[in-house]
C-alpha cells in the first residue's frame, strides 16, 4: 500500500510540475498578446 502511495504521489507531483510549466508558458503568451 505504501509503495503504491509513494509512486502515485511522485507521479502526481511531476504532473503538477508539467501543468505549472504549461501555465508559465501560457502566462508568457498572454502577456505578449496584451
Amino acid at each position, binding site marked *: 500500500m505504501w509503495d503504491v502511495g509513494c509512486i502515485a504521489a*511522485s507521479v502526481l507531483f511531476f504532473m503538477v510540475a508539467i501543468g505549472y510549466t504549461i501555465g508559465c508558458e501560457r502566462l508568457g503568451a498572454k502577456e505578449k498578446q496584451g
Partner: protein
Amino acid sequence: MTANGWFQIFFFFALVLVCAKPLGVYMARVFERERTWADRIFRPIERLIYRVTGIDESREMAWTEYAIAMLVFSLVTMIVTYLIERLQHVLPLNPQHLVAVAPDLALNTAASFTTNTNWQAYAPETTMSYLTQMLTLAYHNFFSGAVGIALAIALVRGISRRESKTLGNFWVDTTRASLWVLLPGCLIYALLLVSQGVVQNFRPYDQAKLVQSQTVTATGTDGKTTTQTVTTQSIAQGPTASQEAIKMLGTNGGGFFNANSAHPFENPTPLTNLMQMFSIFVIPAALTVTLGRMTKSPKHGWAVFAAMAALFFVGVLVAYYAEAQPNPLLHSVSQHVSPLQAGGNMEGKEVRFGVANSALFATVTTDASCGAVNSMHDSFMPLGGMVPLVNIMLGEVVFGGVGAGLYGVLMFVVLSVFIAGLMVGRTPEYLGKKIESYDVKMAMLYVLIFPLSILIFSAVALMMPNLGLSALTNIGPHGLSEILYAYTSATGNNGSAFGGLSANTHWYNLSLTAAMLIGRFMMIIPMLAIAGSLAKKKLVPPSPGTFPVHTPLFTVLLVGVILIVGSLTFFPALSLGPILEHLLMHAGKSF
C-alpha cells in the same frame, strides 16, 4: 584565528581561481560544440549513445520541451531508485544482507538524490547495499549534477541567443555534461583518493577485536534495560572512492558512510580535505567563465565571480572567527591555541582538520549546494552555525551547486538590473535584452517559492508536538535552528544536516521529500521560462541609460540585492534561532 589558518583559506581560493578560467573555457567549448582535446575519446561514445537511444542531436528544444524532458527524466529515474531500494534484499551486491529500505525513507532518499540534495535520514553503512549505493545513488550523483549544468547552459543560451525559439537539446546537454565534464574529472579524482587511502572494494565489513572491551547499557522499547559487553567492532568497507569523487564534483554531498567527510575512509588526509573543498567549488566557479565566454562578455562573468567571492569571504570570516573563539560557558578551561591543541571550539570537529579547515569546509559546502560535512554543524558556536544556514538561505548562489549556482545567481542578476532600471527610470536591460514584466514575474516566482517552502514547513513542524517537535534532541532557539536548518537544507537542495534532529520519521521523511521536490523543480521551471523569454528577444543597442553589468558597481549591487532579499526574508527566523542562542550563551545559558 591563526596566520596558518588564513594561509590555507587563501591557498584554497587561489587554487579555485587559477583553475576556473581553463575549465570554464573548456566547458564553453563543449556546450558550443567546438573542438576539444577530449573529442577523440568521447565523441564516438556520445554518437553510440544517441544511436542506441534514438536521440537526434541536431534537434533543438523550446524551453517548455526542455523542461518537460527534464521532468520526465527525473520522474523515471526517481521511481527506479525507489524500487531498487525497496528490492535491495533480493538483489545482488549485498554482502551484509541488509533488508529492504522502509517505504517513506526510500521515497525520501529517491527524491533526495534525484534533486541533487543528498539529504540522508539513514546511516548508509547499515541501510544501503553496495548495489543501491552504486546503481542508484552514485548514478544520481552523476546525472543530477549533469542536469544542473545542462539547465545553466540552457539559461546562458537564452541570454546569448537572439530571436530564437530554442535553448538546445536537454538530452545532448546532459550527455555532454556527464561525458566531457564529470566523468573524466571523476576518473582522475577517484584514483587520487585511492592513493590517499580512501577505500574501494566490495568486501564484507571487517571485524576488529577491541583492545579494550566496552560495556554498553541500552533501554529497549519495552522499557527494559540490558547491559552487554562489546568486544568487536564492524569496520564498514565498500566502493567509496568512486562515489566520493562524484559526491564532491557534482556538489551532491551524500556520504558513503554516516560520518560523511569526517570519516577517515572518505577523507583520510589534509590533502584529500583540500581536494574535496576544491572539487566542490571548481565547476561552479568555472561556470561564471563559461557564462562570460558564451555571452561574449567575459568581464560580466568575472563581475559575477567577484560577487560570489565577496560573499564567500564574508561567510568564511564569520565562521572562522566564531569557531576560533573560546566558548564563554567553559570559563575555567584553557581554549587557547598551543602546540597541544587547536584552540577555540573543537566540539564536533576532527582533530586532523582543526578549526580553520572545519569552518572553511562548512562555508564551502553550504555556499555550494553540496552538503558534505567534515565537522558537525550542530556543534558550531551559534554564529558559526548560522553561517551555513545563511549561505543556504541566500539561495546557494555563492558559486553554488553545479549549474544550480549559476542559474540561481542569474535570477538575482535579473532582479538587480530591474532595480537598477527603476533607479534611473529606464526599461531595464541585461546584455542587450530588455527585461520585461514577464521576466520579472518569473524571477520573483523563483525567489518566493524558496522561502515559502522553508518557512511554511518549519512553522508546521514547530506547531505539531507529536510530529515535528518530538524528533528534536535540543530545546529553545537551538531546537528551532535544527528544524529550520532541515527544511532550508532540503528546499535549497543542499542536504547537509545540522544534526540533533531524528529525521527518520514518517513526518520528516515525507515533508522533507516535498520540500526537496519543490525546491528543485518548482524553481527550475520559472528559470527556464526566463531563458525561453530572453532567447526570443531582439538585441537593443546600449544607450546612456543602460546599466553596465561588468563593473564593480554592478558587483556591489548584485551582492546588495542577494543580501537584502535574503535578510528581509529570513531575519525574523534567524533572530529567534542562532542570534537569540548567541545572546543567551553570553548570558550563561546553553541548550
